[in-house]
């Protein structure tokens, strides 16, 4: 397993995850920076992602959709807040409507990624924060059915690993 630690801050609604990879930072960075590689891991196998726009520059955006088992499409977007290849990336991750237009009414999550050399490999520190408690509640309401399916699929994969 490459996840080294997970910390959940219930007051600040923040997840901090540390993962260690057996590859140089430049290689791990490629997983984020190359849209073809990003779409191989962003969505779960049952909801694979297709990246459309992918500009990792400050203020740039990434747009994508995930395709469900019934061909149903779920659109999402990132707004890049800060980027420093190959060591850090900060973006706001949000939902979009059926036409792929970013929805400002739906909740967003701020994600910070840091890659550092560690033990001959790369340590990835990831912090994901819900901006407000209301947003978190909304995610729970809308994400339940879909999130549950997704999570069960991932559980299977984790247990098999």
């Amino acid at each position, binding site marked *: *397993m*490459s*996840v080294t630690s*997970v910390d*959940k801050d*219930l*007051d600040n*609604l*923040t*997840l901090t*995850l540390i*993962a260690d*990879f*057996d*590859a140089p930072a430049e*290689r*791990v960075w490629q*997983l984020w920076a190359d849209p073809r*590689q990003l779409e*191989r*891991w*962003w969505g*779960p196998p049952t909801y694979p992602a297709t990246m459309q726009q992918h500009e990792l520059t400050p203020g740039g955006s990434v747009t994508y959709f995930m395709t469900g088992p019934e061909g149903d499409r779920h659109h999402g977007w990132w707004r890049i807040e800060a980027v420093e290849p190959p060591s850090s990336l900060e973006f706001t991750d949000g939902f979009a409507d059926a036409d792929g237009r970013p929805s400002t009414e739906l909740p967003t*999550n701020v994600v910070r990624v840091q890659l550092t050399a560690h033990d001959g490999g790369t340590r*990835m520190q*990831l912090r*994901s924060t*819900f901006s407000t*408690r209301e947003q*978190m*509640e909304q*995610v*729970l309401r809308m*994400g339940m059915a879909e*999130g549950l399916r*997704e*999570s069960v*699929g*991932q*559980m299977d*994969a*984790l247990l098999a*690993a």
Partner: protein
Amino acid sequence: MVVDELPAKAVDDLFHALADATRRDILLRCGREEPSVSRLAEAYPMSFAAVQKHVAVLERAGLVTKQRSGREQLVRSDPRALQRAREALDALELTWRGRVERMSGLLADDMETQTRGHER
């Protein structure tokens, strides 16, 4: 596995937190109002630090949360809110664990391709 260890630890924290009369009293008080740590300290014949420690134990067990309000730390017992936060962060954890697994898988593929390349 980690998944098995977490609930047992959580249960231990919970029972430890509830095993003390002062902590049970603090918990009841926080259910009725949102006292600051200093107001709680006034209510018990013990030092501020001791009360702070009790609050920390309750916090670790997920029974209360502390919220900063100006210069004060308000203590709130809101099991439902905590439960919701935990659910949301658990879901987020699963999502990211799945992603990290897939990232690892892709990096492992590199190695395999390299090894096969050397063999040829």
